[in-house]
């Protein structure tokens, strides 16, 4: 800060919130028309200001250097004569000006908010908060609807289907033996079961195939009968009574 008093262009970069903040400072402090920035002069001043910027942590230094590169590029573009009457949007400075104005507006908003914060900090809320027991969950109204449960179920199902594919690719093997046990267990409860119902909880092709293989193996061993009334009709697995055997 003392240095700044001696030389107006020797600036402590660290006190700026970033390259746009620094650039705006250079422009506004010299009453420069932001819509007609003398880019050579400003670039020189900016480069002088960020001399020694390497002292800053890497990310911050990079931000200032990036802006320096942008300024140098614009300066170079300005050397090419532009045809008269050309749209302002094609001015190499146009994007920078837009960014500067946008940033300046938010910087101003932040200033107004800071004043609000300062006013609010003068009002104190109650310091001590009595500890009260939290209510039991069951006493609070529940706002969940069935649609939400249903949507969660659908999402879960989709996720599992995806995971199953991944497992399949990894070559996870499905043991037919396991599936045979499941089929037998299912038939312990009721005389017949639909193949689709066995497969459904798992929902993957490889599971369907292994259930079918399990059923066929059980049929071969005369534990079950497999029936399909017509092509594409549901496949039913029937329990074989012992006397049938």
């Amino acid at each position, binding site marked *: 800060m003392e240095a700044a008093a001696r030389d107006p262009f020797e600036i402590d970069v660290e006190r700026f919130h970033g390259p746009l903040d620094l650039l705006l400072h250079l422009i506004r402090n010299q009453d420069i028309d932001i819509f007609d920035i003398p880019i050579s002069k400003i670039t020189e001043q900016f480069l002088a200001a960020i001399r020694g910027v390497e002292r800053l942590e890497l990310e911050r230094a990079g931000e200032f250097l990036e802006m320096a590169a942008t300024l140098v590029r614009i300066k170079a573009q300005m050397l090419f004569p532009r045809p008269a009457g050309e749209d302002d949007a094609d001015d190499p400075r146009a994007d920078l000006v837009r960014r500067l104005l946008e940033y300046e507006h938010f910087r101003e908003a932040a200033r107004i908010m800071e004043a609000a914060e300062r006013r609010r900090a003068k009002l*104190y*809320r*109650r*310091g*001590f908060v*009595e500890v*009260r*027991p*939290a*209510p*039991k*969950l*069951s006493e*609070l*109204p*529940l*706002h*969940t*609807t*069935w649609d*939400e*449960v*249903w*949507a*969660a*179920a*659908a*999402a*879960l*199902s*989709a996720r*599992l*289907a995806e*995971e199953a594919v991944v497992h399949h690719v990894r070559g996870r093997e499905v043991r037919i033996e396991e599936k045979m046990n*499941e089929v037998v*267990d*299912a*038939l*312990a*409860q*009721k005389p017949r*079961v639909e193949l689709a*119902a*066995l497969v*459904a*909880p*798992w*929902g993957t092709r490889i599971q369907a195939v292994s259930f079918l293989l399990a059923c066929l193996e059980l049929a071969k061993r005369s534990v079950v009968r497999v029936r399909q009334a017509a092509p594409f009709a549901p496949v039913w697995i029937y329990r074989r009574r012992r006397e049938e055997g």
Partner: protein
Amino acid sequence: MRASRMVEALLFASEAPLSAADLARADESLDEERVETAVAELRAEYDRDERAFGIFEVGGGWQILTRPEYAPVLERFDTVPQAQRLSGPALETLAIIAYRQPVGRAEVEEIRGVGAGGVLKTLQERGLIEVTGRGDGLGRPLLYGTTPFFLEHFGFRGLDDLPRPDDLPVVLARRDSEGAE
């Protein structure tokens, strides 16, 4: 600035009880005697106006607290806004239990691929699920099912009233075999 109002501001904004000595330090115009007088004055005003709060002696100091008769209102009021909705994991778990009941924690965890302990506890506290029995497996695991409140809340007449298996996400299709795991 009146001494009693300075004391009032301090007792209100302080997070710890303040003694007469503490309060006297707030301003040159105060000493312990003046503080005592100020507290007595505030007390008389709060009593006269039947304020919902009063000055109580706590741990060697004073504190402004709500009067005990308002405790029921405050307790009833407490809300945990997020707790009024079920989380994503809770919704999934509830769906699995609704369709596959009775079902054990291990099966729920296997389907969802993550631990279910906390979620099961929440659903139980919420009164949506309950322990309905024990499975046959190792350690006779607890089996969960939905409660009558579950049906009531979602407006189902019975479990048969849940959306049909045809439009059901595959993973939830109730296996007609129970306890196949």
